[in-house]
């Protein structure tokens, strides 16, 4: 079911739209700045030369997930639901 929903979202381009909305919402609520500061700390700790993308992703993903505000999540869920409702009708 998850994969079928994903497929629908990607095929219709809705997934990109949702990502855009999410990005703007995260910038608006200061999530991005917060996470950027966190990343800076990581980079300072590891040294500019030794930072890898894998490290960054592994360190930012849990924190990023936790920091996403609930209302942003709710908005996105609502959007997905309405999209699916439109698709099914």
């Amino acid at each position: 079911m998850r994969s079928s929903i994903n497929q629908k979202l990607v095929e219709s381009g809705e997934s990109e739209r949702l990502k855009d909305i999410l990005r703007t919402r995260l910038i608006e609520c200061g999530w991005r700045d917060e996470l950027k500061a966190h990343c800076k700390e990581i980079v300072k700790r590891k040294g500019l030369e030794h930072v890898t993308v894998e490290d960054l992703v592994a360190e930012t993903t849990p924190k990023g997930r936790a920091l996403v505000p609930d209302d942003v999540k709710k908005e996105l869920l609502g959007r997905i639901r309405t999209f699916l409702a439109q698709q099914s009708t």
Partner: protein
Amino acid sequence: MHFIFPYLTFELYACRLKSRIMEILPAVPDELFSDTFSSAALGLEEEGSDAADIKAAALDLVLEDIITNVIFGFSLEIHRMCKKGVLFIEDTDTESIQQFKIVDTPGFDIFGQELKKKSLECVCPNCERLMAASRFAPHLEKCMGMGRCSSRVASRRIANNISKQEGSDNDSLGGDNDIDNDWSTGKRSKKVKKEKYSSSLKGRGRPANKMRTEAAGELDVSTLLAMDVEQRKSVLMNICGALSEPNSKKICTRPAKCTLHSDEVRQLSRHNFLVDNGSQRVLTPTAGCHPLPPDDEVDIDIDTFDDLDSQILRDALWEKDRTPTASPADSTSTVNSNSSKKRGRKKKSKRNDK
């Protein structure tokens, strides 16, 4: 192509990484999802759950996918900034933050400077006057006489300028030509003198012009008399030179072809200033009837040229070649000497009258 290429490589790199990270990620989400979406995960595992629950769980997972994607993109962005060295570019020390702090108090601009009206002024390139910036464009239009109905002042001024320029051109070019013509018809025996005169006249051309432009239509006789003969001549070359009124002490300074005064009057006054050294003799109309040559220089030469000399020269010429094939040069010389002699006599008679 060079612009696209880095972008493409970056995209390819991102895709490759994404696939690698997606291999890593399944280990991460299990723990994470267990906290945040425990109910959904449980709902999926429960056999007797409703279809709505399953759907909700699926939606949560889809949302998580989207969020993960965005975070992944953000991480790539940060990494990119890190490698390009722009990650810490906006970090500043406290001093500069204090220095460039945006001021938000009324009455000041954002740099903390007081709001006061600056008087912006421009210098008009035409008349070099200071002009408020807001008035500059209209002024320039008028000053330069652009536009359909430019002001009368501007058009008049332009007309004046043009006439002046043309006048000076004529003086500088045509004036010299005139001199040459005069001299070519004059005495050949005075070549050295002629060259000296013409060079001196060329040299004095500009001061004379200046004087003419400066004088407001009339020139006082006394100023003219204060100069020596050559200076007077250079002045009179460029102006009418006639006395404005018969008994006044003003000279007309209009161009040489002035319509107000006749050639006769001009000749008289020239004669007066150059030959008789400005003596205030009453010039009788009969004097104007003399067949004077049109220009003053010739007068001078004839006057300095002694009558005796001319007589001797003429006699010598007559004696030398009595042949009918007399050269034209000889004939002219005789004519000139004749006229000069005649004139000289008349002048003498005038002086005697006085």
